[in-house]
């Protein structure tokens, strides 16, 4: 189990429907929190990565602007993009820059400000995150793609709309106690089932909300981590994979092959197995995505993810608590900020600082972050 690179500071802005300032100001909130958390100053940071998807706001090449605003010149900085998986790709690259010896301390900054355009416009942009020649011309969007996965899962395994509703109910319970979440109401199964259909079988509450938000992680090599932090959280395992952008190239739709591959790599690197994981953050952009993650990450056999949620095993106190911060469904999904927020949650859990969301005694945590509809997947295993 390698202990070469650690996370020594985490920060996150409140996720909101409509942030009232500029991108740079929103990012500053997450950054200042992470730097204070790490007990360092901006000058200690040797490089920064900015994780974000373009075309939601007007600033191009945000790395340069953000490095200026955060006082991170003249250190190197660049933009990394894997749509919704950008933040954890940032962790992978920051790990590499440090392990390769190029830098000692690297900041991974994620942000998205989605409220400057309409919801239909943002769906159009998400549609152009699929193949613009062969899929977008039909009017594709994220809920539709995930709905097509749900249809196959339903048909093959008798998963039901109630199972998906149970996942949203869990998310809403934890969202209600997370003061950084955008959606703070508790929902019932009935409310979820009676909501309008977005793309069958997915209904309004099966879908996460667009949000504005920022996150920041500070990574350091072993020497600097031990010096700066009393509780470094180590990167034990990393996995990453890609799939064809076109659905026509996928072997199956009742799970995500990218997550299976990324998880296998991460478990192998960490020398751990699914049952060693005490708490997990998975990419629940839609309820079906969380259900597939249970199976793809090995928490349940294929087709048996529904039993985990039916039995309440993914709540705190269950076999494998998942998204006990509300997940993307309740926290909100500011694309570039999402991966960093997931990692932050696990870091706080492993430090025992997760407050009302704490999983008692958590020692090993896992993050799974997806870009697009199973185009990219990153799996990260963290430990004390």
């Amino acid at each position: 189990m390698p202990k070469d690179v650690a996370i020594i500071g985490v920060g996150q802005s409140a996720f909101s429907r409509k942030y009232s300032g500029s991108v740079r100001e929103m990012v500053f909130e997450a950054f200042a929190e992470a730097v204070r958390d790490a007990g360092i100053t901006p000058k200690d940071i040797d490089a920064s990565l900015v994780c974000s998807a373009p075309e939601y706001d007007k600033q191009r090449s945000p790395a340069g602007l953000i490095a200026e605003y955060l006082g991170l010149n003249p250190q190197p900085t660049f933009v990394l993009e894997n749509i919704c998986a950008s933040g954890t790709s940032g962790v992978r690259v920051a790990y590499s820059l440090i392990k390769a010896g190029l830098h000692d301390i690297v900041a991974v900054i994620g942000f998205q400000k989605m409220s400057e355009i309409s919801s239909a416009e943002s769906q159009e942009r998400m549609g152009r995150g699929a193949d613009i020649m062969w899929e977008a011309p039909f009017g594709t969007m994220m809920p539709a793609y995930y709905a097509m996965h749900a249809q196959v899962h339903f048909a093959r395994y008798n998963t039901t709309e109630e199972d998906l509703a149970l996942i949203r109910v869990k998310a809403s319970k934890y969202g209600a106690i997370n003061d950084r979440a955008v959606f703070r109401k508790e929902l019932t199964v009935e409310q979820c089932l009676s909501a309008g259909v977005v793309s069958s079988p997915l209904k309004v509450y099966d879908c996460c909300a667009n949000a504005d938000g920022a996150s920041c992680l500070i990574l350091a090599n072993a020497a600097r981590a031990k010096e700066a932090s009393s509780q470094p959280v180590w990167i034990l395992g990393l996995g990453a994979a890609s799939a064809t952008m076109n659905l026509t190239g996928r072997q199956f739709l009742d799970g995500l092959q990218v997550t299976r591959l990324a998880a296998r790599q991460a478990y192998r690197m960490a020398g751990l197995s699914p049952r060693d994981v005490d708490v997990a953050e998975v990419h629940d952009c839609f309820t079906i995505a969380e259900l597939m993650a249970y199976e793809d990450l090995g928490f349940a056999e294929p087709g048996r993810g529904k039993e985990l949620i039916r039995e309440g095993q993914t709540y705190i106190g269950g076999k494998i608590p998942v998204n006990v911060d509300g997940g993307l469904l309740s926290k909100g999904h500011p694309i570039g900020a999402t991966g960093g927020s997931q990692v932050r949650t696990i870091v706080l859990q492993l430090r025992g600082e997760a407050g009302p969301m704490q999983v008692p005694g958590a020692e090993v945590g896992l993050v799974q972050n997806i870009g697009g509809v199973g185009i990219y997947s990153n799996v990260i295993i963290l430990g004390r």
Partner: protein
Amino acid sequence: MGFEKFGRKSYTAQTKVAEFVDRLAQGEICATRCRSCGRIYFPPRADCSFCLGDAMEWVKIPETGKLASFTRVYYAPAGFEADVPYTLALVNFGDVKVFGRLSSAVEESTIKIGMDLKPIVLEMPDGQITYEFIPVEECGR
């Protein structure tokens, strides 16, 4: 040029496989096959990622396929608002799978994964051209 005519709204005008649209106008839905290694690709492409060859030929996709998955969309991205609700579908033709829309005439309750479908060419009033899938029963077989 030419590819801007494909679909409800095209985002690309230039491609080496723009002939796909000409063939569509003649009622044919085609994949490409690599002359060097024989691999068949849908979406059609100008280059073979297996053998790196760029000699491709057009081949018609099979007459009928089976529905691999679908969804009925009630909320559209910008530019597609006039079409809702519409049904997106992935259809398996054996050698290739094809993504597109299911005819809006098909009732959602009658849609079943595994059902037999046939692609037809559809010319839209604004001159755009596309294809959609219809149940095999309905086309009189």
